[in-house]
């Protein structure tokens, strides 16, 4: 007899008011199989994952576990049926410590510990408060907790989007190993490299409907994108960043010996108008502190910041913005007014200063917001509340705000987190275009392959200081990776 699939979902439909997130989603997973769930931003992947794991109730459809119809009413029930998810947002309780979080979900401690170290996190104490831990660690803890629950099917929703490259490696390794032991995995990601490395099969969602199953084999990207977008999109042409920018005259931003507790110790660099300067760093090397200091969020403990030759101190982001420095945080929850409309979110900086507390300039606002929405192709069907947008579209809104406002110096912290391939392809040229029009851009990304696509140069930060400056257009992933690990070799471009 043929073995029944571990999980078999069909005909799943779900509407949020007027928005049909899913109309007919289907998917099967067998033992030991890793199935990629692919789709553009807003295709319904997360909604599907939430329905399969009881976080949302479907309007219609069927879920079978080993052939038996299952009613997954809540995440707890899903866990009991062997379906364990890692959602896009951390699902750990910020005000409890790690141990209590485990107890809450009845997770055995020892396997959890084992998984945490297996996944590359060292020095975690069970009495650490979740709220004090960095996002990347939380993602890993979420995964370790899921693994320790010994699931039959593991559902990973953009698990790696917020992870630095080294941790991604660990995750892929562990998932592969578990699949070899017979675990079924549903893997949501926008990263083709990961999918082709890891997955056996892909199910593509488009507009809430399953539009095809693909076997992962060389050249499948082309086909997947076609299915995802319903159209052909030239992929693979790695149109790398433009040539050397004109690094002459006064730098837009001159940073000297900048230090900020706890991680950043000594960083100096110049950023010129018209330049995109990449920042390459593994998790927690001080890049968070660097961006917080430059954006006026936390004052640095030492060092100087000059803007157009004038020394500056920023006591508040408003100071930085007044000096032309605008910051897009990596964590979109920090940047979005989740209950407000797309328009209000994008127009927010227009009203920030006291001088602009008066009547709104509605026409101007409409124009600028429209411009940003077009530029970023934001899906505005659920625009009444930003929280109803899909994750990727939310991410676009955070950038769109500054596109609308117009920028001199843009501090982008991992802007392509969770963005689909088409949009990414729109964002790189956009960043380049901004630079060509005279903006200076500081660009941190956790995906090293993006560096040559968007940047002119890249500074590599390791252990709180700059260890290398690389001409990005020529740098391949291996070079960057070595540098990021603090292994500065002769082969790195001068």
């Amino acid at each position, binding site marked *: 007899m043929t073995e029944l699939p571990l999980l078999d979902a069909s005909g799943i439909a779900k509407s949020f008011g007027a928005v049909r997130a899913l*109309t007919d989603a289907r998917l099967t997973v067998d033992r030991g199989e890793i199935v990629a769930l692919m789709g553009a931003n807003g295709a319904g992947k997360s909604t599907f994952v939430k329905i399969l794991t009881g976080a949302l109730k479907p309007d219609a459809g069927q879920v079978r576990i080993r052939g038996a119809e299952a009613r997954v009413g809540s995440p707890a029930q899903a866990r009991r049926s062997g379906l364990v998810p890692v959602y896009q947002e951390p699902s750990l309780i910020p005000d409890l410590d790690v141990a209590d979080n485990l107890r809450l979900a009845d997770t055995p401690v020892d396997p959890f510990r084992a998984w945490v170290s297996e996944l590359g996190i060292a020095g975690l104490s069970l009495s650490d408060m979740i709220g004090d831990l960095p996002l990347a660690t939380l993602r890993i803890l979420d995964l370790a907790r899921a693994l320790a629950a010994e699931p039959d099917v593991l559902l990973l929703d953009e698990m790696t989007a917020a992870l630095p490259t080294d941790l991604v490696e660990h995750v892929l390794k562990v998932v592969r190993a578990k699949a070899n032991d017979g675990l079924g995995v549903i893997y949501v990601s926008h990263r083709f490299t990961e999918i082709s490395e890891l997955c056996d099969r892909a199910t593509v969602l488009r507009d809430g409907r399953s539009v095809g199953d693909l076997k992962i084999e060389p050249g499948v990207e082309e086909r997947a994108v076609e299915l995802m977008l319903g159209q052909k999109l030239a992929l693979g042409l790695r149109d790398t960043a433009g040539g050397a920018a004109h690094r002459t005259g006064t730098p837009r931003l001159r940073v000297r010996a900048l230090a900020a507790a706890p991680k950043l110790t000594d960083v100096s660099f110049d950023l010129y108008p018209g330049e995109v300067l990449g920042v390459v760093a593994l998790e927690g090397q001080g890049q968070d502190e660097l961006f917080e200091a430059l954006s006026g969020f936390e004052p640095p403990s030492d060092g100087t910041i000059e803007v157009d030759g004038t020394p500056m101190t920023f006591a508040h982001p408003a100071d930085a913005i007044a000096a032309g420095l605008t910051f897009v945080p990596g964590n979109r929850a920090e*940047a*979005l007014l989740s209950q*407000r409309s797309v328009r*209000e979110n994008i127009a927010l900086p227009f009203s920030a200063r006291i001088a602009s507390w*008066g009547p709104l300039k509605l026409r101007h606002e409409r124009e600028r917001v429209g411009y940003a929405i077009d530029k970023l192709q934001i899906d505005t069907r659920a625009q009444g509340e930003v929280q109803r947008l899909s994750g990727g579209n939310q991410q676009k809104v955070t950038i769109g705000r500054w596109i609308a406002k117009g920028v001199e110096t843009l501090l982008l912290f991992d802007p392509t987190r969770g963005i689909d391939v088409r949009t990414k392809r729109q964002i790189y040229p956009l960043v380049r275009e901004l630079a060509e029009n005279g903006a200076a851009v500081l660009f941190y990304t956790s995906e090293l392959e993006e560096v040559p696509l968007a940047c002119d140069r890249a500074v590599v930060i390791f252990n709180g200081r700059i260890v290398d400056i690389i001409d990005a257009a020529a740098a391949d992933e291996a070079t960057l990776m070595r540098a990021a690990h603090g292994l500065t070799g002769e082969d790195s471009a001068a």
Partner: protein
Amino acid sequence: MSTQSTDPPHVRLGLFLRDNPMIPLLIFLFLLIAALEVMRPGIVIPIRAGRDGLISTFWVGNLVKFAIPLAMLAACQVLTMLTAGIDLSVGVVATVAAFVCATLSSIWGATPAVLIALSTGVVVGLVNGFGVGIVRVHPLIMTLGTGLVATGCLQVYQRMVINAGTEIPGGLEWLGIGRTFGMPNGLFLFIPFAIFILWLMRYTGFGRILFALGSNERAASLSGVRAWHVYLALYVLSGVIAALAGLLYLGMIRQTSLSLANPLLLPSVAAAVIGGTSIFGGRGSYAGAIIGALILRVLDTMLTLMQMPEGARTALFGLIILAVTALYVRITGTR
């Protein structure tokens, strides 16, 4: 991934109501008034001959009249709740303003008295704004504390003016008890006021910032908003509104008292939340709060006119408020 056009009618109705939350509230209001009319036939009829053939007791006029100060105080709650705050000092501020105005106008005349009364609102607002915006004390505690302090100050002040006599400025009396075509003159103050608040919330940068702060303060400050500026301005505005409401109330009740407007505090919060304002910030509607105030007033009348033990009356009041909000939430799908 498609549009509403194919949705069944009941879904479309739900969506319509969700986008126009005012409609179910208005329906509740009219249902309540209809129930009242059934209970006491004739009460809603606008014109009835009284002594000397004058327009007599016009209940709708009274309803509106007493809803106005409540709706003004509810504005304080709506505005502060937008930023996830609350202003529990409004009742006291209104009382202080009324008391100060009545006692000072017999000494210094009406205009200085009114100005000083309004400035008490500014002072309390400044202190609230300082605590909430700069020291970052939770607004509930901050405004509770300033309310207590203001009560104490009022009592100390009261000692000094026991024998000063009181006088209610003519303008306030005209606003408070005068009528035009059967409707209270208070509307001459309130309609511009309400338009101002609605405009402030929807069409000004300040309004936008209030919503933004309540939704996500970190996001707002990342966009360059200095939160303490906003809180300071907001709580001063709230204080001034409360003082203004107190002055109007003085004209209506024509009696000073050390607790004149204090009983309006809880209803002002209730009016705001019935009207669909979220105490968690980021969502609120002043039009809703105005209807909320009217609903509360109609309920007051209904219960006053019902013959039943006081306990049952009080309990019924609570149950109806709960039923109205629960139905509202069910219909609009918001919370």
